[in-house]
């Protein structure tokens, strides 16, 4: 690394996950645009708070300038976040938040209510507002999935969904085989099931595969948060009508720009504005929450084009 460069560590939940790889690519892109920044992209072997703390400790030991984290646990990372702050290291979270006490700002891809509402709206549109729906989530311990499910249930209270009851919530633990089995179980135990929402990239791809494999295309639809490269086939085959996600490349990109502003001494109090490079600006909200934008919706018309990118 060039001497005098700033070092920003991007610490994600786990490696070998194309979503986070895309985020890191975005971060490197931003670093190139800004100049004078080195990105350290790393993660622990297991997606647990304990292991992530060890990785953050190693970054603190190196006295990096800033740390961007996708947290495995919101509260458990607070102490280590505070320790970093004490040693003059700026901490922010993206994707999956650290509780406010442990970081300066959190960049949400989109607002939680919006993400939740969006997914309910997507399945309602696909099903025409009629039919049983279930949720296939990641592990029951994952904070962002849980808060989206809360938001979905909030949206569900609206009268237009009265013919579209939520019948079950199951957990595939972000493992393909378990998600697949849970999906099969859902289909069998709820013969009238029409739709499934899966707010996780692993859940949605395994769920879609179970639909295709079970010859249920047209009978059951899945939606949720997925990656175009993984979902392309299933959209084309019809297991999935629409799904959403933000662009993870942009997500990493924006986070890096925000961190750059913080390192440059920009205030992070409520109401201050932080740059997201060519994505514009974001305004810091309550508890240091920032929002990148709206989730982007994919369907037959655009999925192939984006599949080439992420």
């Amino acid at each position, binding site marked *: 690394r060039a001497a005098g460069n700033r070092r920003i560590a991007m610490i994600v939940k786990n490696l070998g996950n194309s979503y986070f790889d895309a985020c890191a690519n975005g971060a490197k892109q931003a670093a190139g645009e800004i100049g004078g920044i080195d990105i350290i992209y790393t993660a622990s072997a297991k997606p647990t708070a304990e292991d992530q*703390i060890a990785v953050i400790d190693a970054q*603190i030991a*190196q006295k990096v300038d800033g740390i961007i984290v996708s947290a495995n646990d919101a509260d458990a990372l607070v102490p280590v976040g505070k320790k970093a702050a004490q040693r003059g290291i700026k901490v922010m979270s993206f994707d999956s938040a650290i509780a406010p006490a442990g970081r300066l700002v959190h960049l949400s891809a989109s607002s939680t209510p919006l993400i939740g509402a969006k997914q309910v709206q997507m399945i309602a549109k696909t099903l025409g507002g009629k039919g049983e729906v279930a949720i296939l989530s990641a592990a029951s311990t994952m904070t962002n999935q849980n808060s989206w499910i809360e938001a979905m249930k909030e949206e569900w209270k609206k009268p237009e969904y009265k013919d579209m009851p939520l019948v079950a919530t199951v957990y595939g633990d972000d493992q393909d085989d378990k998600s697949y089995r849970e999906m099969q179980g859902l289909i069998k135990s709820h013969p009238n099931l029409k739709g499934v929402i899966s707010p996780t990239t692993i859940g949605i791809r395994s769920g879609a595969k179970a639909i295709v494999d079970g010859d249920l295309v047209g009978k059951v639809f899945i939606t949720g948060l997925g990656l175009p490269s993984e979902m392309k086939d299933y959209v084309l085959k019809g297991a999935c009508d629409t799904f959403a996600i933000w662009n993870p490349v942009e997500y990493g990109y924006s986070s890096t720009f925000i961190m750059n502003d913080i390192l440059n001494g920009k205030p992070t109090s409520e109401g201050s504005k932080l740059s997201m490079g060519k994505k514009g600006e974001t305004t810091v909200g309550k508890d240091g929450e920032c929002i990148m934008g709206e989730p982007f919706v994919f369907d037959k018309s655009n999925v192939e084009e984006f599949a080439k990118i992420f």
Partner: protein
Amino acid sequence: MNAPVTQESQDRYTVLDRPPWRLRDALLRWEVILVILLVLTVVVNSLVSDVFLDVYNLADATSNFSEMAIIALAMALLILVRDIDLSVAAIVALASMSIGYAAAAGWSPAMLFVVGIGVGLLCGAFNGALVTWFRLPSIVVTIGTMSLFRGLTQVILGDQALTKYPQPFLDLGQNYFIQMTETSVPWLFVPPVPLSFLIFLILAVVFGIVLHTTAVGRKLFAIGSNPIAARFSGIPVDRLRFFLFVLSGIMSGLAGALLTARLGSMRSNIAIGWELDIVTMVILGGVSIAGGVGSILGVFLAVLVLGLVRFGMSINNIPGQVVSVYIGALLIAVISIPRIFEKLRGWRAGR
């Protein structure tokens, strides 16, 4: 008569008090290999990175493995007597959850530790009872209780996290228990020490003394070497094994309390997968999985080697899974060294 016969037989063989000291034997001792490895780790790390030899960094590094290391002490004794406890991480979860609820009910920090240790004790007793009463292999029982204990945590906790703890309790886990104190001499100072590492140090000394110098320790070696003969020698084999499972539960409960204080939050996946890391520590420490062989010093050294290798690699930004590859390779390589020497000696002798 035959009195002279026995008189004569006293002097028939000269039997030495102990084997003659040989350099090769000493060098091939497990602990010596580990010391060399430890020195190597420190030297290489401090050459590669200038932030390695920093007392605060090292103190932080110890807090990341001390809880596991505490459990490893009990696991070493279990493996020594040919048992194993794969449910330790699940016990940590169950204990941590109980602490979470007790904290929410407003219990004092001391009581939280008591709760953690108490729950651990119960879990350990459950394991011990299944293993000794039903005469089941411990690896099988604890694979079952591993699911059962963590499953119970999930049943009770669902998707919730427990995050309310009294501040003094959190301070125990998050601040240094002994503060850095410098003296007028630059190289003479009291380093900062986290509570968990301090407890590990004290326990390691206690375990080492009990195992290597007391009658109980000798009995454990006997059980590990031949449990049937040990029973015939009047050693309460099942009672001691039961006790070791309880001990393993207690250590897991204690580790659970320390971990909860350090994290300030717990979910049902806390400490997941620790069991294999702990077994790795014990095995690298030279405790034989076949029973009857091992030392606490070895386990202590292995804990430091593993912890510092891991820390050293992460400050060089090597990702977690790649670190695991090195650790796995290290484990096999180190265990192979004496065997390769033996083979070589055998070949040379054969020729």
